[in-house]
């Protein structure tokens, strides 16, 4: 026994095995593939990672509808949607580079660990070559990190925190959705025009990454135009009744309440604010106002009449009249019977942009996709001329300032576009302090 299993023998075997494990997998993989999940057959698999359970399940369902529509259009089914208006002509309805598009889905549950687990499963078990989707910045940052490590492309869904393309940006990750800085930059001039420069703002902020960057961005933008920030109060993400956070506002001379809340938080805090008569309040001779920096039509439904007249921003709205938006609304509305949400729009667009980048680059290799998307200028996808900036993989495009509609004509007609803020007004330097601290790094093809 001792001859068979000596200390030296174990060490030698371990060292050889360790060296083998430590070798880059691209060498061990040999000629099998140059990158992770390289498609070898006649199909290519995309991974749609959306919240199918949990508080954002409805938004996730809308994202999934948009993905299914995008796959249909890529495979040459349906009316083609925004493929007909997209400025690029590399997609011809024959899938991606002639491979039929298939997909698998995962459930993020709007929890970072669950989202990473479902993305990992889609990459390792299902062979997904690209992961996309999500309705939370916490989830986006977590899954983006995973995709960078795994060597697949991540096309973010709805994520609005500055951090996603700021301190947490990654070379394999791309965001089409706008961010908190852009919301603030677009909203500030409208707030100035509507409410003047002599205002006192009170912030209620959801206590997590998105809330913090939204508060920082809108406070900086409103202070720059002369508003005073009276207080910034962080509220637990799990809070449902905001009355005890709203009543202290009555004790201050604040005349604007900024709700840095999203989803159920926004519905409840706005409802509570209206219940406590804030919208009927006069302070220092001025009408008290409420601002919701990030609007979602799906969430606005939950707040009902309380959203009427309240200003906010959104990435896209179905009432836009450009050709791309009209084509998308027609496709989506005909298939599902109601207009798409902004989450659906960004997910649809991200899928097309990925497919287009593969086709233009001539390869599914993530590094080829990164190269094709970096600095890419496109149009016809609903937001006007758009740039995927190379420095941080953030899309730059016009931003919509919207207001809760006073006389809605239907259950979908909740928001009206007040202003389309030009892209130049929401641009910022890649090293802007609100986005500092991150490093894009090198693209990782995995394998």
């Amino acid at each position, binding site marked *: 026994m001792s001859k068979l299993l000596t200390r030296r023998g174990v060490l030698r075997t371990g060292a050889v095995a360790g060296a083998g494990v430590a070798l880059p997998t691209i060498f061990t993989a040999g000629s099998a593939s140059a990158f992770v999940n390289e498609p070898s057959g006649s199909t290519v698999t995309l991974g749609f990672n959306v919240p199918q359970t949990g*508080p954002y399940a409805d938004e996730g369902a809308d994202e999934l509808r948009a993905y299914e529509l995008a796959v249909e259009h890529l495979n040459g089914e349906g009316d083609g949607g925004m493929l007909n208006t997209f400025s690029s002509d590399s997609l011809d309805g024959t899938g991606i580079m002639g491979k039929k598009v298939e997909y698998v889905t995962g459930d993020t549950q709007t929890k970072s660990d669950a989202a990473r687990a479902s993305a990992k499963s889609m990459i390792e078990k299902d062979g997904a070559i690209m992961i996309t989707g999500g309705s939370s910045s916490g989830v986006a940052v977590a899954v983006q990190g995973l995709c960078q490590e795994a060597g697949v492309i991540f096309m973010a869904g709805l994520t609005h925190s500055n951090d996603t393309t700021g301190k947490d940006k990654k070379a394999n990750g791309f965001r089409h959705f706008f961010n908190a800085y852009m919301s603030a930059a677009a909203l500030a001039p409208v707030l100035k025009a509507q409410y003047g420069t002599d205002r006192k703002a009170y912030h209620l902020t959801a206590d997590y990454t998105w809330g913090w960057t939204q508060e920082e961005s809108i406070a900086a933008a409103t202070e720059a135009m002369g508003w005073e920030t009276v*207080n910034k109060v962080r509220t*637990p993400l*799990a809070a449902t009744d905001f*009355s005890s956070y709203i009543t202290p506002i009555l004790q201050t001379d604040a005349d604007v309440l900024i709700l840095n809340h999203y989803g159920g938080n926004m519905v409840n805090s706005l409802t509570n604010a209206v219940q*406590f008569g804030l919208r009927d309040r006069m302070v220092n001779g001025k009408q008290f106002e409420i601002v919701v920096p990030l609007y979602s039509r799906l969430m606005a439904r939950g*707040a*009902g009449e309380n959203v009427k007249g309240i200003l906010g921003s959104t990435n896209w709205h179905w009432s836009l009249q450009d050709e791309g938006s009209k084509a998308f609304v027609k496709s989506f509305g005909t298939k599902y019977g109601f207009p798409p949400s902004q989450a659906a729009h960004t997910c649809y667009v991200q899928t097309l942009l990925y497919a287009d980048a593969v086709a233009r680059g001539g390869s599914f290799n993530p590094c080829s996709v990164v190269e094709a998307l970096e600095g890419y200028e496109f149009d016809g996808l609903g937001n006007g001329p758009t740039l995927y900036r190379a420095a941080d993989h953030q899309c730059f495009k016009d931003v919509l300032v919207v207001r809760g509609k006073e006389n809605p004509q239907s259950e*979908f007609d909740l928001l009206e576009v007040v202003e389309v803020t030009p892209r130049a007004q929401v641009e910022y330097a890649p090293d802007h302090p609100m986005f500092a601290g991150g490093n894009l790094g090198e693209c990782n093809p995995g394998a």
Partner: protein
Amino acid sequence: MDAIILQILNGLDKGSAYALIALGLTLIFGTLGVVNFAHGALFMIGAFCAVTLQRLFTISYETIDETKTDFLGNPAKVQTPYVESWFGPDVGQAVIDWSVPLAILFAIPIMALVGFAMERGLIKHFYRRPHADQILVTFGLAIVLQELIKHYYGANPIQTPAPDAFRGSFDFGVLLGFDPNHIIYPYWRMIYFAFAAIIVGAVFAFLRFTTFGMVVRAGMADRETVGLLGINIDKRFTIMFALAAVVAGLAGVMYAPINSPNYHMGMDFLVLSFVVVVVGGMGSLPGAVLAGFVLGILESFASMNEIKQIIPGIDQIIIYLVAIIILLTRPRGLMGRRGVMEE
């Protein structure tokens, strides 16, 4: 001073919800000895009774309005609720407007039926099982119920407003000699507090002044002896389970205008309500009500900026902190019977 009054008022409506849920939990624990983790789901189902009645009242027929277009550019379909067509626009609108108060009548039989079905169909099989088994099965049931609600109603909150007449706020400040607009309190929250007080009073009166209540109280004290007297105590306890479900359901119905109902709202209240029961004293009905209001008010005070500046994050832990202190110093809770949780 005005800030303190406001937080007491806030605590009263929060405490009302805690007290009503904890009251039902205590009724079930006291009578059946079951730790019911599905009780929050009953609160949620109550709120969805209000949503359902609102939807029933707004069931509409479609007509085509050629002068308007929908989002696809087709002639718009105009929805007209049947109640408006049957009773005229004014009466129809009033019926829809009053759907939440009317949902009280709608919810009572539904919640009683849900409670009865739960107890006969599932809970009764776990009477003699350990509390851990009861917690697991009722928690599982709660998840099933909330997923069912999510399947049919979606995951987003659903706006269920109070009647127009109660949508404003009352200026307590003027009443108490403060400046106007400093102590404002919504009418519906005042109604919620009054409603909770009436329900609590009615449950206590029912248990105190009726023969049925007397038998139930006797059964809570000594189930075996009451059984030996030839009284079918199990049947009465089943009715008490249904009653507890109705109390939780009504708390949910009236809560619907305060925060838009969503499928998860039961879970949001469940853990806190259990803490309320433990602090009040397991099995003590007055303890549950007292602890509900005390903890509701403490939670409101902990949310004040002045307090949070001294102890950051205190608003999220105050209830658990109080529970730890109570359990360390008085394990049977504020009004629990001697011996319960003390062995």
